[in-house]
């Protein structure tokens, strides 16, 4: 197990290294941030000063090694725009995004799994067909459009829920969260549901397919021949087997929920890190983009690790193996 963890950490470090190299070179090729940041009225002297301050006058490989050296000490550089440490900028906004993503995930599971089970058990009923139609809509309608419609209906016309911002927050273990206050919760519902819609559809489909597949298997028939009631067959025999593929996909999807909540955050003016990264890419704020992507890589790795561990808990056939036996 420890050697397994060790090999996973090595893999993450290699990924981080390759990713940073790609982003560094990529952004270098796209353009010069100085052109974007400085107004056209800046004098050549001012220009030169800024270039030197950012270290952009040195060859790109040298810039990369400077970055690497600093990164090893935990310093990912200062934002070109805000002149603050890039890491701090991102960490300030991360709790908002994480909260949004987790609430969306919970919604996806709490709504998706029961609906999926129902649709899998009674695939020909009218309700199941409605559930499946809903999931097709969830898949195919663009997030931003649904977000706008939701604002129009629930905020503008009905006036039930607020349309933007995070509302009142309270500190939980030193981190500001919204879901513990009524005001915060009301601000959270629309964006979280908007973000969750696609995932709900996905979970419904995966669960339905899993249930339909497992119900056909021999051990379900054998459980019936043992005289087990249907409720127990579903709860014990079917559900655990259905969860196995679900865990993998959900793990990956959680990563993408966090990393790509950009659209929803923009529509609902949610003060998360998605907005920050879009702005930073626009002005080629390399330190922020790099720091953001590195955090994303680490987050994905951790999530994948958790998924693998969960997997081995649910499915005894999976054994975690690392360097040696």
């Amino acid at each position, binding site marked *: 197990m420890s*050697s397994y963890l060790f*090999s996973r950490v*090595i893999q993450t470090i290699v990924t981080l290294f390759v990713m940073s190299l790609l982003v560094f070179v990529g952004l270098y090729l796209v353009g010069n941030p100085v052109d974007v940041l400085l107004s056209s009225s800046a004098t050549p002297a001012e220009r030169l000063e800024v270039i030197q301050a950012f270290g952009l006058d040195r060859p790109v490989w040298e810039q990369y090694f400077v970055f690497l050296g600093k990164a090893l000490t935990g310093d990912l550089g200062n934002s070109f725009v805000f002149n603050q440490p890039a890491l701090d900028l991102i960490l300030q906004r991360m709790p908002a995004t994480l909260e949004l993503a987790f609430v969306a995930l919970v919604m996806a599971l709490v709504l998706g799994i029961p609906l999926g089970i129902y649709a899998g058990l009674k695939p020909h009923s009218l309700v199941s067909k409605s559930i499946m139609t809903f999931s097709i809509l969830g898949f195919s309608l663009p997030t931003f459009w649904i977000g706008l419609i939701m604002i129009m209906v629930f905020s503008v016309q009905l006036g039930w829920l607020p349309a933007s911002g995070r509302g009142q927050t309270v500190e939980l273990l030193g981190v500001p969260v919204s879901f513990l206050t009524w005001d915060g919760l009301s601000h959270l519902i629309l964006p979280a549901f908007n973000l969750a819609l696609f995932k709900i559809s996905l979970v419904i489909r995966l669960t339905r397919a899993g249930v339909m597949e497992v119900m056909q*298997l*021999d*051990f379900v*028939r*054998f*459980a*019936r*021949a*043992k*005289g*087990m*009631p249907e409720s*127990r067959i579903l709860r*014990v*025999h079917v559900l*655990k*087997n259905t969860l*196995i593929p679900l865990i993998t996909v959900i793990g990956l999807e959680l990563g993408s929920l966090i990393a790509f909540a950009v659209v929803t955050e923009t529509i609902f003016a949610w003060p998360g890190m998605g907005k920050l990264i879009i702005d930073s890419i626009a002005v080629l704020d390399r330190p922020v983009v790099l720091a953001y992507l590195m955090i994303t890589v680490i987050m994905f790795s951790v999530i994948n690790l958790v998924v693998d561990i969960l997997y081995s808990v*649910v*499915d*005894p*056939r999976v054994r975690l*193996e*690392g*360097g*040696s*036996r």
Partner: protein
Amino acid sequence: MTRPILSIDDLNTAFKVGGEWRNVIRDVTFDIAERETVAVVGESGSGKSVTAMSIMRLLGPNARSTGRIEFEGQDLLSLPMDLMQHIRGNRIGMIFQEPMTSLNPVLKIGDQITEVLMQHRGMDQGKARAEAVRLLDKVRIPSAQARLNEYPMSFSGGMRQRVVIAIALACEPKLLIADEPTTALDVTIQAQILELIKTLQQEEGMSVLFITHDMGVVAEISDRTVVMYRGDIVEADTTERIFRDAAHPYTRALLSAVPQLGSMAGEPRPLRFPIVDMRTGEAQPVKPTADTVRTDEAPILKVDHLVTRFPVRKGILQRTVGNIHAVEDVSFELRKGETLSLVGESGCGKSTTGRSIIRLTDLTSGSVTISGRDVASASKTELASIRRDAQMIFQDPFESLNPRMRVGDAIAEPMVTHGLVNRADARQRVGKLLEQVGLSPAMADRFPHEFSGGQRQRVCIARALALDPKLIVADESVSALDVSIKAQVINLMLDLQEQLGLGYLFISHDMAVVERISHRVAVMYLGEIVEIGPRQAVFENPQHPYTRKLMSAVPIADPTRRRVRNISNDEIRSPYHDAGYTPAPLHYQEVSAGHFVQMQAVEKAA
């Protein structure tokens, strides 16, 4: 006679196919008395499993049954579902064919046993676990206590079937329904499970309904036998009378097609099966087999000290930590017109030997020569030309034909690939080949799904013949076929051997078929040949303990020859060894002319 424990009266079961109800079994009527074993026997599609499932009402919403199934004074068909659940697993236990899939892979063995006890017996967790240990002991699973916390994956097929039996018998049912319980198991394991069912039946005093296609198993286990054919019962009688003088032509046809171990005593050459007409019950006389073995020519296949190992890699660096010694120091020769059978149980390396010979699997060391050309060192083009001489037929005719290719094209493909014929000639040749294997040339335009299993295997044979091979490696080629079809395909293979002088390397686990078809036999165990020789010598004078064990495990299709057998509870051992292991060199002793037996180191004795 006492009142029957189960009484089936006019049972009809229909399936809904495309909005229409289609009858699958018609007017099935039979009884099972207390402590009696009744076998329902038939080929695929006979409705024997549907009968069993109808009794338990396990067929789901797409099926409906009418008639009466009376069990302990209740009609099961009209019972509400909650009362039916009380019968299932409690009063009637059931076991299925596939032990590998009958158990839930993600639940511990212990939980799968205790849930039945808690459901039907109202036991609490602690009591149920104690009872589960007792049950595992009863089905002869060693160190039962410790194994409760294991998952099905750490049990072998035979052990899993024992667990399934333990579950089915947990509540001491009055009736056990066993649906092909040994079909998926190796023959020595099958013997163990049959013995276990018999013993437990006597201990518990229950009745058994035994569903099988295997006449040998029927003769071993049942008191009475019900023969089914396409959904109807054609005959029902005591097992002895069925085997002695069956009344119905179908039963006679079925019995004559069953290969019987020991029936070839004194017969020097392979023998065709008598084919009995299913309507009249009359048998065609068996054509005597010609002597096809060409001892005057050089052997077409020479295998010399063949070794094939599969490395087992672990860790980041993928170091080889051990090897599966699939084939270990195997040597033999095969002549034109000769059939050499490789026989053994699963994991003995017989299939790997076959695959290594035409290099579908790369060999580790040793040499293989086909028609004087070395296979191991052949380049890609050389290998292609060698493979023209050596073709393969696989076990599953459903999977070895491309479902989207017309069979004519499938047969023509090898000829076209090797550039032997143009398209127009290919068609003619395909027609001839189809005729040769007993099909009509007009069938070339059909797709594989339009054929039955036996016909598909004929198509596979035609495809193998397309390149005029000298050697055919037949890997379990008749194992998936029903008995009557199996007999026909074996007869066809013998015909072709006479006409074309083919050499067969016949790989099989079925001792009785092997006895019928081979000139020579090699018995494999853990990757090694333990005994090889002329068929008569090996079968009539088996020398190696493993050969003897294998032969005594084969059920004999004759109820008057039932034996009391001493059956060990051995598992089949694994051919895995840690890296660096060097097997001891093998030594053989010649018992009689051409009959070699491995000299046994003491620990090797099976």
